[in-house]
């Protein structure tokens, strides 16, 4: 019997969402402006993708104030880290010897 192919989590597989999760994997938390600059995306697109990640429970949002200006801070949740690890494992299995 051939080994069953693993499935890739569609929430993570989106390019922008994958970029954001990868960025958040290297830091404790990051604000919206920083994520937008690093990914080169627009406010609207990034906002929509962050909402999807939040709904999936992969990121947590925190609203703060820097001086008088509101600041939106995102951090990766344990579920997000687990999902990203599983996504990487699935990618490795799919690519097999290509890596």
């Amino acid at each position, binding site marked *: 019997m051939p080994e069953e*192919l693993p*499935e*890739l*989590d*569609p929430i993570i*597989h989106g*390019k922008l969402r*994958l*970029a*954001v999760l*990868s*960025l*958040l*994997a*290297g*830091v*404790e*938390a*990051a*604000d*919206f*402006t*920083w*994520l*937008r*600059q*690093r*990914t080169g995306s627009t406010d609207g697109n990034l906002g929509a993708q962050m909402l999807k990640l939040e709904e999936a429970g992969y990121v947590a949002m925190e609203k703060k104030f*820097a*001086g008088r*200006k509101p*600041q939106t*801070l995102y951090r990766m949740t344990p579920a997000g880290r687990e999902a990203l690890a599983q996504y*990487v494992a699935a*990618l490795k299995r*799919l*690519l*097999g010897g*290509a*890596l």
Partner: protein
Amino acid sequence: MVTTENGSGENKDELLQRIELMETMIAEGRRSTVRNGWIFVLWGSLYFAAVGWELFLPFRNWAWPVCMGAGVVITIVVRVRQRRTAGGTVNMQSRSIMAVWRMMGTAVSLFAFTGILTHHAGGTMYMAAILFFIGLAHATSAMILRWRVQGAVAAIWWVGGMAIFFANRWQESLAIFLTASFFGMILFGLYAMMLERRREAVQKHA
């Protein structure tokens, strides 16, 4: 769930691109984007301004409180503006370094305030202690960042602190303090700014 063919062609390329994207973004997230060099230039210049005011201008008792107060205000205002335009991240390293410098600032402020209040300011021990405080912050930061240049800067402040004990006149102590400020703050800050600009240029072309 997305099921992907385990074969060659577009799917494989796409998956490899995803891995490349992840590697790039993880490295990007870990890379420090904070601009700190200007802070050293600012504070080094303020030390010179305070000494200059104290020596040559009226109301000399106000020189240090006003210059140091201005330093705190300018640092906070510029930091908040930087954060607004470029955003920022929180990680253990940046929090550690921030904690070191904030606590050093608090310790020196309390030390200086009490010294001025009790008329102990200006003595050999007083001046030397301030140099050791600043050297301590540089040394701790250098260890966190594993940055030898900042380690050398810490040595400049500590050697300066030790040298003050051998100074015979207060002018000599002042000259030691200003020398340490020039090399250990202004020149170091300019060097850090140069590195930051070079790093940004590399990132833009990457």
